[in-house]
């Protein structure tokens, strides 16, 4: 070990383990975006008219936003040419739609196996239903029967449009309207698939629902849309995890997630994100521009976002909660790790509208290499939100002397009874800590990952057990490197 910085840098220059490309013929539309493309997407999916109309309204709105691509985030990237992208691609074997796992392209299943995603038996035993999204179309859904017994609807968005159009029409865009922001509007126009989940009144979803995302086809923008509705007194825990193959060209991902929690309902949404971050020089990698928002619609409803973000070249993401119901609660727990030239601008918005609403924000940012990591969070207490409470804690850990950590808290309190607390710390991983571990016989690599895991402990505790283990492993992979 030379200087402290060098050694820590060495430790964290780990390679990306999930870099391989599956060869599957994609049934793709030609690149470019216009009304015909929107109509073609809608026709391919045999959508009812309300869907097509909604997409077209979004598209026409998006045209007006052309010069309004957001620039306020602390991230830099070359201008995206939206006419060079392909807006629809489906694995070929999807033409008739797989009826069971046996019908799923074996190449695809092998891809999931390489990624360590146990799609069938192991997962079955673990009690997790998997709705795997490969490029744009869902290819396998398990456990439907068991969920159906409980009255839970868990399916691809496309299926929901076919089988539950009234629910889709009622809730689609009710939390994130198609006019919301540049990327959400684009998503509304061209989204290809995603997940849909409906928990009926009083039902506690009998298992953790899980979706794995993966970006594959070259130059394919992926536009997922997830909609989760929890009726009165229901509960659901939803897990989302992603990995992507190695790519040289940047890929745009602009997903939208909408959550609706009615009276006394609770939604826990957990994400582990590990998309290809680009190489050491910042080449390649995913642009992850995501709009996630939950609406605590009913009184005493509860929405909790937990995220572990280690991948993507650029992350632009603010899972938010609108606390409309009285006594409703919103939570945001986040670990964001950036290495090499990764950039992350992530945080949350807690919008207090109802009385006695409470929100908690715990954000842990870890920067290494030359990465930039920003927390951006808004806490707004509206005039009618009596006795609103917020607690925010933002901690940053720096692993090198060339990286950056930034905190942008926005606080708007329009009600004198509101109480908002904000704490922030920034620490540098200590050569002292590292040496202390090594003097006890611990590998420097293990020591770094242990120290980082310790730093993230508050957030990992909020993850479902199984996901917490994955998250720790992911941090280890993201931090691993050659030690002399």
């Amino acid at each position, binding site marked *: 070990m030379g200087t402290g910085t060098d050694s820590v840098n060495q430790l964290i220059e780990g390679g990306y383990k999930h870099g391989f490309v599956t060869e599957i013929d994609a049934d793709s539309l030609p690149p470019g975006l216009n009304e015909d493309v929107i109509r073609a997407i809608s026709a391919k999916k045999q959508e009812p008219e309300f869907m097509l109309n909604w997409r077209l309204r979004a598209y026409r709105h998006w045209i007006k936003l052309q010069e309004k691509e957001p620039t306020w985030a602390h991230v830099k990237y070359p201008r995206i040419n939206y006419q060079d992208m392909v807006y629809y691609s489906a694995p070929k074997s999807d033409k008739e739609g797989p009826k069971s796992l046996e019908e799923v392209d074996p190449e695809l299943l092998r891809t999931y196996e390489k990624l360590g995603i146990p799609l069938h038996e192991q997962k079955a035993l673990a009690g997790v239903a998997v709705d795997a999204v490969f490029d744009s179309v869902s290819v396998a859904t398990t456990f439907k029967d068991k969920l159906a017994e409980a009255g839970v609807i868990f399916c691809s968005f496309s299926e929901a449009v076919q089988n539950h159009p009234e629910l889709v029409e009622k809730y689609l865009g009710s939390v994130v309207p198609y006019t919301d922001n540049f990327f959400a509007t684009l998503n509304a126009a061209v989204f290809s698939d995603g997940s849909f989940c409906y928990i009926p009144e009083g039902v506690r979803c009998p298992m953790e629902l899980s979706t794995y995302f993966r970006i594959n086809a070259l130059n394919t923008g992926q536009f997922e849309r997830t909609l989760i509705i929890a009726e009165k007194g229901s509960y659901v825990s939803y897990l989302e995890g992603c990995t992507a193959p190695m790519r040289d060209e940047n890929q745009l991902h602009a997903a939208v997630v909408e959550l609706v929690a009615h009276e006394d309902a609770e939604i826990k949404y957990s994400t582990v994100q590990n998309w290809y971050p680009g190489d050491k020089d910042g080449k390649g990698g995913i642009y992850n521009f995501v709009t996630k928002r939950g609406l605590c619609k009913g009184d005493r409803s509860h929405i909790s976002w937990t995220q572990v973000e280690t991948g993507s070249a650029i992350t632009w993401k603010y899972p938010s909660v609108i606390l409309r119901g009285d006594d409703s609660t919103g939570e945001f727990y986040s670990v964001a790790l950036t290495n090499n030239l990764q950039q992350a601008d992530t945080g949350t918005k807690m919008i207090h509208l109802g009385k006695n609403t409470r929100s908690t924000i715990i954000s842990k940012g870890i920067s290494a290499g030359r990465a930039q990591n920003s927390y951006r969070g808004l806490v707004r207490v509206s005039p009618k939100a009596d006795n609103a409470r917020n607690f925010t804690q933002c901690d940053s850990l720096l692993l090198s002397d060339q990286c950056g950590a930034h905190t942008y808290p926005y606080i708007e309190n329009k009600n004198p009874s509101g109480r908002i607390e904000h704490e922030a710390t920034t620490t540098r991983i200590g050569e002292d800590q590292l040496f*202390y571990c090594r003097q*006890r016989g611990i590998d420097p690599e293990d020591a770094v990952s242990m120290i980082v895991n310790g730093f993230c402990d508050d957030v990992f505790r909020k993850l479902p057990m199984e996901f917490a283990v994955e998250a720790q492993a992911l941090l280890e992979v993201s931090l691993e490197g050659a030690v002399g």
Partner: protein
Amino acid sequence: MLSIRNLRARVGETEILKGISLEVNPGEVHAVMGPNGSGKSTLARILSGREGYEITADKLEYMGHDLLEMTPEERAREGLFMAFQYPVEIPGISNIQFLRTAYNSVRKHRGEEPLDSVDFLAMVKSRLKEVDIDQSFLRRSVNTDFSGGEKKRNEMLQMLVLEPRLAILDETDSGLDIDALATVAGSINSLRSEDRSIVMVTHYQRLLDYVVPDHVHILADGRIVKSGKADLAQKLEKKGYGWLAEHAGEEAEA
């Protein structure tokens, strides 16, 4: 066990150790004393593998290995333990997890199977009494929000669990009240055995009332200016470090 001949160390232009020679045999307890700035903590740090020093030595061997060829973790796995003057906080990692990771690193090095958490906990519990701390301590984050005394007791717990061959204690007695001092001394004494060696670096004589050393060395300005038996420490206590200055050079052999 430990063999040092003409050890010199500098940071930039400043020479801190100016030719230290020291021989520590198995079973021996050595005390290294000296005023502030004499280089005694530097000596401890260099032995444990801390970077940042330019080091030269005619000989610097531990258990027959050239210490300068060993990384800090290799030294630790070979049984060289340092109790830190300022134990480091690691938030979010429990004491028990830290200790087990360390313990199993040593076992792995010896080609032994790792101890599972149940067996390990049982083993650690048996050691807790010796350092007078209760079990809830194990769930707390490593040294985080510990009092000074708790940090030092924790160092002793780690030492007892890891069972080193050579323990180097860097001012372990500093900042302790008399009860804690007795506990810490008890831990050191319980480690004493024919095949183990202990080097205590200390400013004060009071620890040596509890742990009687076989040899005492007095360091001043980067050199060992005097070596002797336990009574040397007492003489020093009475006469102060000023007394040494007058005799410096007279008995500079190790």
